[in-house]
């Protein structure tokens, strides 16, 4: 089987597909690409099934040596690889693709025609970094087999990519939104260095927590939870499946890609929308993807 050798691994480079669903009742969140929009676009561009596994790089990219000819696409943020982004590109056997530090957001995806052919664990190739389900972060010397998930011809390069926006995160009300006033929507928050795939920790104006005790309950992806210190945490792809902190808001599905591209020290603010607005925004994003 042809494969790709990891020459250098970067900061946190993992194999991801769209996630491992159906295990939350065992306390295992879906994981999957932090910017699923970018992974799906990359897969569509190289002619893969949308859910094919690709490589997710974080802040500092990896280098890959191709042991066979391949068609690849880099999507997400620009990690200075010297290839056009959001475009299928042919790579020859023996060539090395070098990614460096991010020049924009937090994550860059490498999709390969055929997908990354690692074995699936519980139905998914995704790495759940914190628990080790699905494997571990890549290291120099690892060999990534190229799979057989190509289902159509590669697409033409994307003409324009929907902008990521200015750091505003659109949210719908969370299950405890009545227990909060609108402090969350007034301030600007900074993404803390302690953020990871499990959660984005924010620093900024205190959001006063509602008084009273709350029973532990299920927590969805993108939930904005507020612990007693009033500093919001946005639950991300490797989030805990249950939690006991109140949740005034939840980031909308169409803005998950913004979460995936937030860097430490990045600035965010919150804007409340209705569920209908959230679904319309998601539909627009889907239409762009299917226009590829």
């Amino acid at each position, binding site marked *: 089987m042809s494969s790709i050798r990891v020459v250098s691994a970067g900061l946190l480079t993992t194999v991801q597909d769209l996630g491992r669903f159906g*295990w939350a009742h065992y306390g295992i969140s879906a994981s999957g690409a932090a910017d699923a929009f970018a992974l799906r676009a990359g897969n569509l561009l190289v002619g893969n099934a949308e859910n094919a596994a690709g490589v997710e790089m974080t802040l500092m990219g990896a280098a890959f040596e191709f042991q066979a000819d391949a068609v690849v696409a880099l999507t997400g943020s620009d990690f200075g690889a010297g290839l056009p982004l959001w475009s299928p590109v042919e790579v020859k056997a023996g060539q090395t693709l070098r990614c460096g530090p991010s020049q924009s957001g937090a994550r860059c995806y490498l999709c390969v025609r055929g997908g990354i052919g690692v074995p699936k664990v519980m139905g998914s190739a995704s790495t759940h970094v914190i628990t080790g*389900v699905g494997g571990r972060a890549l290291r120099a010397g690892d060999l990534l087999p190229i799979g057989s998930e190509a289902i159509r011809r590669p697409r033409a390069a994307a003409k324009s990519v929907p902008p990521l926006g200015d750091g505003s995160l659109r949210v719908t009300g969370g299950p405890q939104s009545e227990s909060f006033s609108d402090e969350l929507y007034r301030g600007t928050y900074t993404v803390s260095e302690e953020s990871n795939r499990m959660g984005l920790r924010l620093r900024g104006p205190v959001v006063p927590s509602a008084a009273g005790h709350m029973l*532990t309950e299920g927590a*969805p992806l993108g939930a904005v939870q507020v612990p007693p210190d009033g500093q919001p945490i946005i639950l991300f792809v490797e989030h805990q499946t249950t939690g006991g902190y109140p949740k005034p808001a*939840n980031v909308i599905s169409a803005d998950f890609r913004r979460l995936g591209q937030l860097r430490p020290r990045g600035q965010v603010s919150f804007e409340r929308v209705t569920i209908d607005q959230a679904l319309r925004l998601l539909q627009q994003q889907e239409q762009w993807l299917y226009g590829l």
Partner: protein
Amino acid sequence: MTIRPASDRSLLVVFGDRIGPESYSAVVHLTHGLAGARQVLNLHPAYTSVLIDFDPRRYTHERIEALVRACMETPGPPAPQPRQVEIPVEFGGACGPDLEDVARHTGLEPERVVEQFTAAVYEVYFVGFATCFPYLGGLPAELATPRLAAPRKHVPRGSVAIGGHQAGVYPLASPGGWRLIGRTRLRLFDPQAAPPPLMRMGDRVRFVPEARR
């Protein structure tokens, strides 16, 4: 029963705000009833609620709500015989650094804390948190001890703990604020092996003291 959106892709079903047999049996009924339904991506059962994740491109909140109501009106299959799980535990010392604190708080000798803790039969209410953490009901009321004021950054894998009126076992090393009274060598969860985890919703659990090595 109240049903409300938790996000644009999830619905939260709440059966009251009190932990008890009625709300819990409703949680079990809904969780089993919706397990494997094609409209559902993930189920998050908890003490009195179930969170349901779905794909908003395919289904609406109204559609999932109708599914929930239909499920609650349909009698479920008779409850299966609960599985019995025994957990060998080394109590106190380095394995249970908070045993002395629990003893002080409860006014019991550490040996009595262990006796009472191991005499009880626990039920796995649900499994959640970060990977296969079993939330256990059935802690003797005398042993209830508040959580730590500031959570530990590192709780070792297999730590057996008391958090308020609940008991639990940490499946993986993680941060945590519960009181650690012992540790088991059993692996509750093995990322290399296919789940299900050692402890599942509805299981009956006993802790068995193990001599200090």
